[in-house]
């Protein structure tokens, strides 16, 4: 609610501009300040005129406040009444065990994702604000074919799950890292960092080849995808470094905080979207359906690769889920762990938010195919 302004320079500005000017005032930057100032020099002398305007403004404010209160109050009373009368019966009908379970799974995915998303946006905002562009151009070879495997292997350093890697990859691109290299990093980081590899070795005790297989297959997928992008990718599939990108809003602290805030809110919204989709699949498709497909080795690989997409299990936990899918071949479980951190509903939503929908769809579908192929090859070789 705009306060009634008693300062002459501002009320003259009111007469000059639209009536909502004061509520917008902070957002317009220096330009309005300038206009307000010139308004001041133009009208400043007409005290009487200004006094009348002040009363009118005050009246208008009071009337508006009264109308809002009355309308809002009536609406609120109506809603509360209806809700308290119909609520219990509706709630009993709508709040079935399935709906309750949906809410729980939905909230659980969001709660699980928030710390990692925050970590990712912290890193990405820090890159945007504090790391000069030339650092990356110096660190990474100019030759994309060489830069891709290096960026892929660099994924080791970002501990966290896939929620963290999307904003980081986005800010790397804005900092001038070649998209092919940034994408290789995006794919490898959630799959091959130490936390995930340790979790995998705990989930598969006495099977170090599973950890190795996961490392090799994930890295191979990331590098192949980077090379594919370098060879066939088109710049127009990626949005231009958008104004909305947040993290690049300026060097130092002044850019860091708004960038962090924007990135987190943006990615958080898409995390919620993905969590909703994942919870829906979780509730609609019972996992016991899977037992029907355990017979054929080929079908089971494809099935678990699809399951990884719809279940959206965090990459730090998916090894435990894979271990519990005991009816499936090791290769199928490897595919589950390779596909999961690279392609899932939550991730597609996050990518669509950061890189645009047309990119996310193309990129995710190709990644899925490459990841399945790479896990089949590695599984055949190692497991």
């Amino acid at each position, binding site marked *: 609610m705009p306060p009634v302004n008693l*300062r002459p*320079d*501002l009320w003259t500005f009111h007469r000059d501009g639209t009536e909502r000017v004061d509520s917008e*005032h*902070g*957002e317009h*930057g220096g330009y*309005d*300040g300038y206009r*307000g*100032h010139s308004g*001041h020099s133009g009208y400043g002398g007409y005290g009487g005129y200004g006094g009348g305007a002040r009363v009118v403004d005050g009246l208008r404010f009071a009337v508006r406040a009264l109308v809002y209160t009355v309308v809002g109050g009536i609406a609120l009373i109506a809603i509360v009444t209806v809700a308290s009368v119909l609520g219990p019966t509706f709630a009993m009908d709508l709040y079935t*065990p399935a709906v*309750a*379970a949906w*809410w*729980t*799974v*939905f*909230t*659980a*995915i969001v*709660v*699980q994702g*928030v*710390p990692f998303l925050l970590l990712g946006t*912290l890193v990405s905002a820090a890159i945007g604000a504090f790391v000069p562009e030339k650092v990356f151009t110096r660190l990474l070879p100019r030759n994309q074919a060489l830069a891709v495997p290096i960026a892929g292997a660099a994924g080791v350093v970002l501990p966290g799950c896939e929620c963290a890697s999307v904003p980081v990859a986005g800010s790397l691109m804005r900092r001038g890292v070649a998209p092919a290299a940034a994408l290789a990093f995006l794919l490898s980081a959630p799959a091959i960092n130490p936390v995930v590899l340790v979790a995998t070795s705990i989930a598969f005790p006495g099977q170090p080849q599973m950890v190795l297989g996961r490392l090799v297959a994930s890295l191979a997928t990331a590098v192949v995808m980077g090379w594919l992008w370098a060879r066939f990718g088109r710049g127009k599939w990626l949005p231009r470094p958008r*104004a*909305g*990108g*947040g993290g690049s*809003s*300026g060097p130092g602290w*002044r*850019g860091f*905080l*708004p960038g*962090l805030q*924007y990135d*987190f*809110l943006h990615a*958080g*919204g*898409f995390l*919620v*979207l993905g*969590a909703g989709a994942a919870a829906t699949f979780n509730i609609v498709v*019972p*996992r*016991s359906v899977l037992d029907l497909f355990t017979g054929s080795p080929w079908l089971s690989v494809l099935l678990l690769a699809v399951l990884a997409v719809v*279940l*959206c*299990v965090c990459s*730090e*936990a998916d090894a*435990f889920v894979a*271990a*519990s899918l*005991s009816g499936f071949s090791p290769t199928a479980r490897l595919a589950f762990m390779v596909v999961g951190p690279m392609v899932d509903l939550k991730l597609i939503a996050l990518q669509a*938010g950061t890189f645009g929908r047309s990119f996310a769809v193309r990129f995710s579908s190709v990644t899925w195919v490459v990841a399945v192929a790479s896990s089949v090859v590695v599984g055949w070789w190692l497991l």
Partner: protein
Amino acid sequence: MRRYGGAVLLLLTGGAVLRISLFSELYLRYVQAGLRPYLVVSGVVLVVLGAVAVVAQRRGAEGHDGHDDDGGDDGHGHDGDDGHNHGHSHSHSHSHGHGYGPPVAWLLTLPALALLLFPPPALGSYSADREAAQRAAQGVGTFPALPAGDPLELTVGEFGSRAIFDSGRSLKGRTLRLTGFVTHGDDGAWYVTRLLVSCCAADASAGKVEIRDADAPVTDTWVTVTGTWVPKGELGSDAAWPPVLAAESVKKVAEPSNPYEKR
């Protein structure tokens, strides 16, 4: 409101995270105990970010007032200068989409308000019935000796794996105590069930123990059952599943703060 949208969302999300992790143990309904420190830290960071955003917006707005007012005395002039800088950072971020909150961010209100107002319940018999109870993937072998205790508290998962895979038969002759919620089978059997979670509630799978020699409580009641193990089937075979406990006593209990077992 629109101006403070981003700040409100951050405060709401941070508040929701703190409400379930710092001010209560509700987070255990959704994620593993180990995530608590990270949740508390992220909650605090989000609240601080939100507060900073509110302050920045206010100072930004005042800064413009001060800037307009630069004909004033020296002190004011200084304020105006300060505000001018803030105004700059604002016009910067303004060029980055409207204010701070991209529209999709408003989706965050869904889980945040749910957690603040009606925290969703822990998963129960509905999810347990849907997930085919899974046996821990492991082979037959010897287990470390059970600790002393009479009765001995065991998790449903531990009981299941020892009952089915322990060639040392460590459960034999012990009085055991299990806690879980009640589920019913098709054939009149009833089970003490616990959901096993490795990361968050989305990956829950069920572990269950058939209870004999006691009347079945209502589905989803939390009970503590004391009794002895009834061997059945060949070790490691399908016939050994689900494990059986002959009950001596069945006591209703409140839902434990951590409704899940770690897988």
